[in-house]
């Protein structure tokens, strides 16, 4: 990546969400949460084509329920 490209990335946002994702994926236990991926609602959201109706999924749960991950 050129210097200017790196500068543009920093200019766009000081947040670095990829870092947090890397640490979560290292910590998380494999297979956890797979039930969500198999849910009809999730598969419809994931697979629907250009449909505004199914564009948004909101996962709601109490603290510690496993919304982010389980470690």
């Amino acid at each position, binding site marked *: 990546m050129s210097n200017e490209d790196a500068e543009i990335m920093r200019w766009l946002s000081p947040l670095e969400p990829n870092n947090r994702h890397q640490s979560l994926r290292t910590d998380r236990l494999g297979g956890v949460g797979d039930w969500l991926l198999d849910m009809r609602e999730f598969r*419809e959201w994931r697979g*629907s084509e250009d449909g*505004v109706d199914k564009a*948004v999924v*909101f996962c709601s749960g109490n603290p510690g329920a496993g919304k982010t991950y*389980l470690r």
Partner: protein
Amino acid sequence: MIDSLCDRAEEENIAIAGLYCDFLARQEQTTINIMGAILKQLVGRGDVPKDVREAFQKAKKDFGGRGPRLADLMGMLRTTIASLPRVFICIDALDECLPEHLPDLFSSLRDIVRECPKAKLFLTGRPHVREDALRYFSKAVVIPISPNLDDIQNYVDMKLDRDPEPEAMNDGLRADIMKVILERVSDM
């Protein structure tokens, strides 16, 4: 969830942006910074788009370099999303954002979904944010997340297998630990 999307992203040519809100970073997690981070992830896949480069160069000249404005970011997001086949945007733990940031964030995300049919949104948050989210996304599909007993059981097994003092463990104790934890979880 993000990893599972990523696994199939390459073959299906999907772009994914994801962000974990964090209470400790809540001051920094403004709508501008969040939308900027989403754009950053989407453009980070290839060459920097021309309009993004030009906006940066212009901003650099003005007043010795100013940050992007929300309206600029939204415009760049729209053109970037339009250039991609499909885009998934995932934002975790909306309840960890400052409440005063949420209305702006929700309406910016709503604009993206309305104006970019290729964009899909995956949000998570505690139940009290659900009502806010539904005001902006009345057709959102709500998936309740509760502790999954199989997940917990696998997790406890894994932890007990890695117990640094295995000689203190026996089958009876193991079964008791599992029973108590699963009972507690079921009450959550």
